């Protein structure tokens, strides 16, 4: 995975709370393989009308949002299902950082596993960022080392789980870290067979 240090890119404000995974990617698009790309389905039913026409009033469709790699939203972003396709849609669209006051837990883990930073900010800071982007869409700088977001003259701190921060900074992959623990895992299973003999399903 590509390490994440500082991202300087166009940002787009989405002043909506509870953007759930069903909105991030509606279920009907989830049958494709990843190689076909999920970007065109991102927030599909918000970006497009039922006739497939682009909704010009939707923030991601504004000319100022072209090439957006940072998204700012309201609380509880990514609530709902465990579908990692919600993250694929964001990443394939080009988004590398979502800024919001809170995130669905499973979404946040999925995000980090795909190099997408879920940056938690205070509610008032989210509102300030949204206000600024509404008035004047433009670039923002997300500095993961220092956990800071700068947009024009606005500078706010953000939080991210420390482990997620390390994983993103280093571009670590969990599987490799785990395979290095093979001995500890073997010792555990041996102990566990004695401690919880009932844990193995009867066949």
């Amino acid at each position, binding site marked *: 995975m590509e390490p994440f240090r500082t991202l300087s890119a166009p940002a787009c404000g989405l*002043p*909506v*709370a*509870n953007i*759930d995974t*069903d*909105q991030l990617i*509606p*279920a*009907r698009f*989830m*049958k494709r*393989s*990843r190689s076909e790309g999920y970007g065109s389905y991102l927030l599909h*039913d918000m970006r497009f009308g*039922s006739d497939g026409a682009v909704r010009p009033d939707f923030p991601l469709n504004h000319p100022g949002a072209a090439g957006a790699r940072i998204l700012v939203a*309201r*609380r*509880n972003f990514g*609530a*709902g*299902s*465990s*579908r*990692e*396709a919600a*993250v694929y849609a964001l990443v394939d669209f080009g988004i590398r950082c979502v800024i919001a006051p*809170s*995130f*669905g*837990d*499973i979404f946040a*883990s*999925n995000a980090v*596993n*795909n190099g997408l930073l879920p940056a938690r900010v205070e509610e008032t800071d989210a*509102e300030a960022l949204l206000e600024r982007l509404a008035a004047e869409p433009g670039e923002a700088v997300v500095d993961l080392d220092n956990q800071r977001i700068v947009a024009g003259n606005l500078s706010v701190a953000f939080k991210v*789980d420390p*482990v997620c921060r*390390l994983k993103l900074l280093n571009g670590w992959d*969990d*599987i490799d*870290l*785990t*395979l290095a*623990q093979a001995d*500890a*895992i073997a010792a*555990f*299973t041996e102990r*566990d067979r004695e*401690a*919880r*003999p*009932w*844990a*193995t*399903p*009867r*066949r």
Partner: protein
Amino acid sequence: MPLPTPRTLFDKLWDSHAIVTRDDGQTLLWVDRHFVHEGSFHAFNKLKERGARVSRPDLTFGIADHYVPTRRGGAIADPSIRSMVDQLRDNTADNEVLLFGLDDPRQGIVHVVGPEQGLTLPGLLMVCGDSHTSTHGAFGAWGFGIGASEVAHVLLTQTLWQRKPLRMRIRIDGRLVPGVGAKDIALSVIARIGADGAQGHAVEYAGSAVTGLSMEGRLTLCNLSIEAGARCGMVAPDETTFRYLDGRPFAPQGDAFARAVEDWRRLPTDEDAVFDREVSLSAHDIAPIVTWGVSPEDALPIGGQVPDPAHVEDPAKAAQIRDALAYMDLKPGQDLSAIRVDRVFIGSCTNSRIEDLRAAAAVLAGRQAKVPGLVSPGSSLVKRQAEEEGLDRVFREAGLEWVESGCSMCVGMNGDLVKPGERCASTTNRNFKGRQGPGSRTHLMSPAMAAAAAVTGHLTDVRDLLKGRI
């Protein structure tokens, strides 16, 4: 020697699964059960990319539920849906993983089948690429949903890295009034703490109203934990749990069962254990609940009115309500019981077990539904039992369609969709925009309430229809 620190149920589960803890606080945990379904194809593809195989097929179980048709017979017509079911068949066969497939008499929704088969046991850590894996917590197991990268990780290593969540206890004491059940408790909790109210927390449900619930009720309650944002939800195992498990196909039997019960009795939270957060509700105050908006937190007692954004001070919250009302086509201040529905759906891992079907049938017996509806039992075995009890006849005679088991209209992946603009009284778990199909409008409620809505054609207090019946 100092006395051992009192531990919560969750602490005990955590401790018994921890393999190693890194300096940064991440702990590698052992996974006892892993369920895969059609949507797990991304993870199997990752495995193939690495040229790897499932490391513990004996702890991995496949279930066809998300995409399966509910009207069966003949091949699946839609090739893209058929391919989802076929991929699961091939991936599980290639890795020697037991599959409860389309033609298996035990097939059903993963969170119904696991408990029913005795695969779900107290003290286990269980995962699945589905957020409602919290359901299994009803047994005092630790169940949680994971994404495709994590599914691949578990397939490969049978372990998962996690950071210990905070602990929250939600107590519901007192007696529920007739016509009110686990779904109403869960929606009341979510309305109270918010759809992100339990984020980062492992929830334990306690109190007399919870221990008084059957296993079916506890499953419904734990199922909806994720709709409050919780990492998991659990109920301590007790006699009700053990009685349910005795004799289940995959559960230990005889002496092994007795030994297990002995261990399981030590799982409940120690008396002096401390939680990071406590919430309590009085069961007596809980009325039948319906949702009016597009998040499960948009829930109110049926006697209430649609909220008016003009009376809400917080501008962001007011905007959220306005947006929800526009999507749902509702007016501020409108009586909830005046909301007409176009169809009902009784099913999903939240409310499709035998008790749910009985509760709905008790309302529908001898009555006619004013709107069309679909009843999809949680598993093929639940379906058979319901038919033995004659419940299928009650649904059919009321004019509802009785179909096979699967996720069906909970998520619409198999083509069971609510049409654009249609309003559905649904026993499912998510009223998100477009969840039941593009443009669909969902009102969440209990099976009894959905049955009542079917009879009257609008949201209705089921207690009025139960007079003289219970």
